[in-house]
């Protein structure tokens, strides 16, 4: 029974922490992609392309088994967290960027015509309008991230999926065990969907 709890808590913790990390890094990358400095825009673009075109499992394997060989040692959970957060950050950055792009260009031009600086127009005009548009895409990313944390089980983190598989070896009650695990993911996704709806309705 403790294995169930450990698996569930690990999945929840990994999801929440990696999503928080992905938001921070993703925001930074999204800003890099829209600043007027070509070099930084290039860095942002390379980040997004490299991370989202390589499977998460490859990243996890590289991080978990590779990092110790170059002298970077972290607890397994935090290694998995780093890989997942950096991977999902690429998707977050793209969602944020398309949110910004979706704000009509006339808004940005109007802000500049009023004499607002790049930073001011971003902060007071563009971001508040982009904010509500990105809630749904970000919620989709959060749900995808919940599913993605299952891959951490492959490299040794005892998450929900991994726990289910181990419990099944002992109990030999596959239907019960795997349905239960599936239900846990459904509940988490429902929670994320609910939070997104609340956020979306809140006035910007």
């Amino acid at each position: 029974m403790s294995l169930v709890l450990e698996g569930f808590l690990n999945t929840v913790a990994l999801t929440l922490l990696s999503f928080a990390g992905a938001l921070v890094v993703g925001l930074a990358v999204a800003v890099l992609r829209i600043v007027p400095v070509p070099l930084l825009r290039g860095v942002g673009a390379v980040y997004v392309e490299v991370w989202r075109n390589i499977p998460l499992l490859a990243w996890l394997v590289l991080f978990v088994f590779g990092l110790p060989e170059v002298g970077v040692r972290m607890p397994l959970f935090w290694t998995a967290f780093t890989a997942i957060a950096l991977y999902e950050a690429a998707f977050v950055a793209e969602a944020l960027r398309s949110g910004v792009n979706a704000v009509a260009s006339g808004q940005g031009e109007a802000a500049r015509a009023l004499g607002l600086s790049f930073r001011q127009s971003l902060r007071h005009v563009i971001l508040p309008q982009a904010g509500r548009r990105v809630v749904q895409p970000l919620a989709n990313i959060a749900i995808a991230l919940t599913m993605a944390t299952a891959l951490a089980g492959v490299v040794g983190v005892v998450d929900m999926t991994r726990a289910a598989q181990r419990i099944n070896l002992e109990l030999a009650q596959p239907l019960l065990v795997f349905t239960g695990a599936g239900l846990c993911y459904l509940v988490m996704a429902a929670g994320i969907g609910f939070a997104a709806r609340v956020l979306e309705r809140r006035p910007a």
Partner: protein
Amino acid sequence: MFDAPGPRLRRRVFWVSVVSALVLTGLVALGLRQFAAGGQLDPVRWRPYLTWPVWRYLLGGLWSTVVAAFATGVLAMAGGLLLALRPNRFTRAYAGVMRTVPVLLLVYVMLFVLPSFGVNLPLFWKLVVPLALSHAASYAVIFRAGVDAVEPGQREAGLSLGMPDGAVTRFVVLPQAVRHMTPLLVTQAVSLLKDTSLGYVVSYTELLFNGRVLANYNGLLIQTFIVVAFVYLVVNLALSRLAHRLEARRARIAR
């Protein structure tokens, strides 16, 4: 997002570029030093990746990856079409469940549950079936969105010309829907190709699994997986480029 830069902004851009270039160089140097300290940059450890047998093995894996992705894509698209054409309570519930449950869980069901019920598929299908079940839901969403993106006036115009309903769907709505969907379909193809890396779990000899076998054999873990990641990157970038080109063409046609 910003006006054509004036002299002051240009100066600022210049200095920010210089500083960030220095910071980047520093970071890369730091990373390389870390690699070098572990002896990972030793040419001896990289030389195997200039030889044909190693590449033949990895490209063999890539071929299996492509085959698995193709089979999954065909099955998932067929399933997605069925789901999208008949929106009812069951299909909606199916899509909802499949878009929240990890594919890995389905793979485990294939590996550990079904055999005890006497269903023991070959490795290839143990990978492809869960992937197809899961991606079918994503395709259904894409198809639905594509059809919904076609203006209702198009269907109405077709009907008012006296075309039968099926013909309107086939000759008026679907061709336009396909054009809306192409970029999303290619993005989905990238995601599908990445998901075949679950062959690592199933022991299906695709690219990532072959990387694991190779790393176990020659002990060059970092080098092997960097090369494998690079292959994924090249293949998926090529697919993404295709997506961009299709999108650009669509924008031209729409205008």
